[in-house]
C-alpha cells in the first residue's frame, strides 16, 4: 500500500517550472565536467556564477528596490561559466556581469530583449576577443554522451512546451547545412559537424528557448527559429566561427520588438472592437 502510494507520488511529482532550467543546466554542467572536464576549472565557473548572482541582486535592488528570484541569474552564470574559454579569470566575471547588466539597460516595453548570455558572449567577442574564446570542443570522444544530453534536454524542453523551437531550428540548420555544402562545394558532414558539439547544445537548449526572450505565439517562435538558422547560414558563409550567437543577437531582439508591437496593435484592435460592441452609436 505504502509502495503504491510512493509510486503514485512519484508519478504526480512535478518540478516547479521555475526550477526546470536551473536543474537542467546544473545536471549538464556536473555530468559534463565529471565525465570530460568540460570546464576550464571550478574556480572560473564559480566566479562566473557568483558574479552573475551578485550583479543581478545589486542591479535589481537599485532599479526596483526589491530583491528578486535568482534562478535566471543562475542559468546565465552557468552558461557564461561553460561557454567562456580563457586561461584568465576576469573574462568569466566580465561576461557574467555584462550578461546580467544588459537586462537592465536594453529594455523594450518593460522587458529585456536579448538573451543575457547571448548578449554577454557576443559583446565579449567584440571587446575582448584577444583574451577569450567560446567553447567549441566536443563532449568527450564518443557519441553516447552527446545523445544522452540531447535526449534529456529535449525531454525537459518538451515539458515546458518549447520543443517546437528546437525542432524547427535543428531541421532548418540541417537544411541550410545541405544548402551551404551545395553552394560552397564543401562536405555536408563538415557543415553539420558543429551541431554535434556542446556549444550547440547550450545554444539550442538554453538560449533560443529562453522564455523571457522568445515571442508570444507558437507560429512566431517557429518562424524566429527558422530565421535564426537562416541568418546563421549567412554568417557561416562569411566564415564566422560563432555564427549562431551572432544570428540570435540580431534576430532575437528584432523579433521580440515586432512581437510586442504586434501584440499591442492586436490589443488595441480588440479594445476598439469591444468599444464598438458596447457603444454601437459610435
Amino acid at each position, binding site marked *: 500500500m505504502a509502495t503504491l502510494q510512493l509510486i503514485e507520488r512519484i508519478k504526480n511529482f512535478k518540478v516547479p517550472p521555475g526550477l526546470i532550467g536551473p536543474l537542467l543546466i546544473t545536471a549538464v554542467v556536473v555530468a559534463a565536467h565529471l565525465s570530460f572536464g568540460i570546464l576550464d576549472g571550478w574556480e572560473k565557473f564559480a566566479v562566473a556564477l557568483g558574479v552573475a548572482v551578485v550583479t543581478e541582486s545589486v542591479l535589481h535592488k537599485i532599479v526596483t528596490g526589491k530583491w528578486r528570484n535568482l534562478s535566471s541569474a543562475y542559468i546565465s552564470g552557468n552558461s557564461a561559466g561553460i561557454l567562456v574559454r580563457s586561461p584568465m579569470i576576469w573574462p568569466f566575471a566580465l561576461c557574467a556581469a555584462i550578461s546580467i547588466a544588459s537586462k537592465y539597460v536594453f529594455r523594450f516595453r518593460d522587458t529585456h530583449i536579448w538573451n543575457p548570455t547571448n548578449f554577454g558572449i557576443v559583446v565579449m567577442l567584440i571587446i575582448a576577443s584577444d583574451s577569450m574564446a567560446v567553447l567549441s570542443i*566536443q563532449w568527450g570522444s564518443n557519441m553516447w554522451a552527446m545523445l544522452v544530453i540531447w535526449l534529456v534536454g529535449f525531454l525537459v524542453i518538451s515539458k515546458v512546451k518549447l520543443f517546437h523551437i528546437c525542432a524547427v531550428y535543428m531541421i532548418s540548420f540541417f537544411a541550410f547545412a545541405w544548402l551551404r555544402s551545395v553552394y560552397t562545394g564543401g562536405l555536408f558532414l563538415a557543415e553539420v559537424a558543429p551541431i554535434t558539439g556542446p556549444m550547440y547544445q547550450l545554444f539550442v537548449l538554453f538560449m533560443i528557448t529562453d522564455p523571457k526572450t522568445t515571442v508570444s505565439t507558437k507560429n512566431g517562435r517557429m518562424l524566429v527559429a527558422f530565421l535564426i538558422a537562416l541568418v546563421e547560414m549567412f554568417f557561416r558563409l562569411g566564415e564566422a566561427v560563432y555564427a549562431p550567437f551572432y544570428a540570435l543577437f540580431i534576430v532575437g531582439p528584432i523579433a521580440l520588438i515586432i512581437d510586442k508591437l504586434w501584440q499591442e496593435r492586436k490589443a488595441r484592435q480588440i479594445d476598439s472592437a469591444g468599444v464598438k460592441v458596447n457603444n454601437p452609436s459610435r
Partner: protein
Amino acid sequence: MTKEVRNKIIVTLIFLFLISIPFGMKKYEEITSDHFDADMEMALERHGFFLEDVTESIGVNFVHRRATVDEKLHHILPQISSVGASVTVVDFNNDGLPDFYLTNSEFGENNALYMNMGDGTFVDVAEEMGVADLNIPGYGASMGSIWGDYNNSGYEDLFLYRWGKPELFRNENGEGFTRVTEEAGLPDHINANTAIWLDYNRNGYLDLFIGGYYHEDVNLFDLSSTQMMPDSYEYATNGGLNYLFENQGDGTFVDVSEQVGLHESRRWTLAAAAADINDSGYPDIILANDYGVDEIFINRNGEYFLNTGHEAGLGFVPKSGMSVSIGDVMNQNSFAIYITNISEAGVLMQGNNLWVPTRQISEDIPRFRNIAGNMGVEIGDWGYAGKFVDLNNNGNIDLYVANGYVSDEPDTDYWYDYARVVGGNRAVIIDANNWPAMNKRTFSGYQTNKIWLNDGAGRFREVARSVGGDLNLDSRSVAYADLFGTGSMDLIVANQHQPVKIYRNHVKPEHNWIGFKLEGTKSNRSAIGATIILHREGNSTRKYVSGGDAFSSQSQRAVHFGVGEEQSIRSVEIRWPSGTVQNIDGLELKQYHKIIEATE
C-alpha cells in the same frame, strides 16, 4: 529627475564601466610596456642583450622542406606535414666547439650537420659524415634528432626519429657515422615527434624514450585508411604509443615500455623532457600531449613509471601540449615546467602553462600550480618550442617561445573550417576526408616569436622587437649554444618549410657567467640527467644536463649559468646520475670548467 530615471542612469553607467574594462586594461598595458624598435645600444642598456641575425654571414643557408604525404591527405597537407624542422646542438668531433644538426623532411632533401670552424663560420659536413641523405621513401621523413653517447665511447652518437623508421648512428671518433639501427634492435616504424636520452635505471648507459604521435600502424606515405586523424580535439585516444628502449650496454636495446608502464595511454605526444623533478635521484618524464592532457611519469627506483599527471595538477584540463621545458624560474633550487599550447584571439584561448612546484603530496609526487598568467608568460600564439635560456646572463632564466603554424597566402584564414570540424563528433573529426581543403589558406601564420625576459621578481616582459628577435616565420624548434665562444647563449631557430635562422647574442659585458662540461665515469659519459646546483650569495639555483627537450630540440651539452654582475660564486654541487654528489668551490667565472665524475 525622477527616481526611475536616476536609477536607469546609474545602471547604464555601471554597464558602460563594464564594457570599458578591456579597453582600460589594454591602455594600461600599452602605457606600462617598454617596447622600442630594435637598437643594439638601447637593448644592451635596458635589457642586457641584443640578437643579431647572422645566418647568411656565417655560411648557413639551410631551408627546411616539409614531407609530402599520401595524396589522400594533400587537401590538408600543410597541417599534416606541419612539423619536422628541428635543430640539435652537439660537439660531434670533440673539438670543444658546438656544432648543430638540422633535419629536413621532404624525400630527397638532405639533413645538415653544420661543423663549427672556430672562426665564426660553419660548414655543412653531413654528407661526408654519412648523416645527410636520410629522407627516403620506404624509410620515412625526418622529424628530429637527439645526441647522446650511448656506448660511452667519448663521442656523441646520433639518434634520428622519423615518421617511419627510427635510426641510430654510431659516432666513429668524430670522423663519420655508422648506421647501427638493426643491430641495436630498434623497431621498424614509429610516427615519432619526440625522443630523449635518459638513464632511467641509472646503470651508466643511456636509454632511449620515443614519443609516438600518429598511430604506429599508420603509414602516412601510403595510407590504408583516412581514419587516422585524432578522434577528439581534447580527449584523443588514438595516438601513437610511447616507447622506452633500455640500453643493454652491448650496443643493443630492449623495448621495456610495457613493463615500466608507458603503454597505458594512446595520447598524441608531441614533446618530452626528463629530469629529476622530485629529488629521488631518478629521472622523471614529462610529456606534452596534443589533443589532451599532459602527463608526468614519476620514476620509481628505475623499475617503473607512475603516471601522476592528475595528482600533480597537470593532468586535468586538456589542451594542445606542444613543448616541455624544465627550469628553475625563480632561483628557488627547484624545477618548474613550461608547456606551450595554442592561443588564437577569439577562437581558441588555451594559454601556455608554467607549472611551479608548490608542495610534495606524497613521498615522491610533487604538486604543481600553473602561474603562467601571474608571471606574464601565458598568452602566446600557436606555440611550439618554449625554451628556458638566460639570454642576458643576469642569472634569471628567460623564455624563448616559437610561434606560428602555417603561413600561406596572406589575408586568408583556415580557422573557420578547422573550428567547425574539431567541434564535431568523433565520427566526423577522425576521418581526414571530412576535413575541408586548406586551399593555400593561412592558418595561425605570420605569428611573431616571443622573447620573455625574466625580471627575477616574478614577472616576465616581452621584448622580442626591442632586442632584434622579431621573427615571424613558422618556427618549430629552438636550441641555444655558445656558438662563438663569447659566453652568451646564441640561438638557432628551425622553421617549418622555411629557412633556419641563427642569432648571435651580444650580452652586456658586465654580466658574468660560468659553464660546466661534465663527463660521467660511473654515470653515462654524456652526464645526461646530472643536476647542477649553483650556490650564490643569497640563493641557489639549479639546471640539469638535458637529453633533449622543448619541441624537437637539444641545446648545448655544457651547462651555462649567468650570474649578473657578481664577481664570484660560493660553490657548485653536482648530483650525478649514479648518485655521486660532488661539491666544488673556488671556480673562476667567465669560463667553462670540465668536470669529470669522481670515482671515489
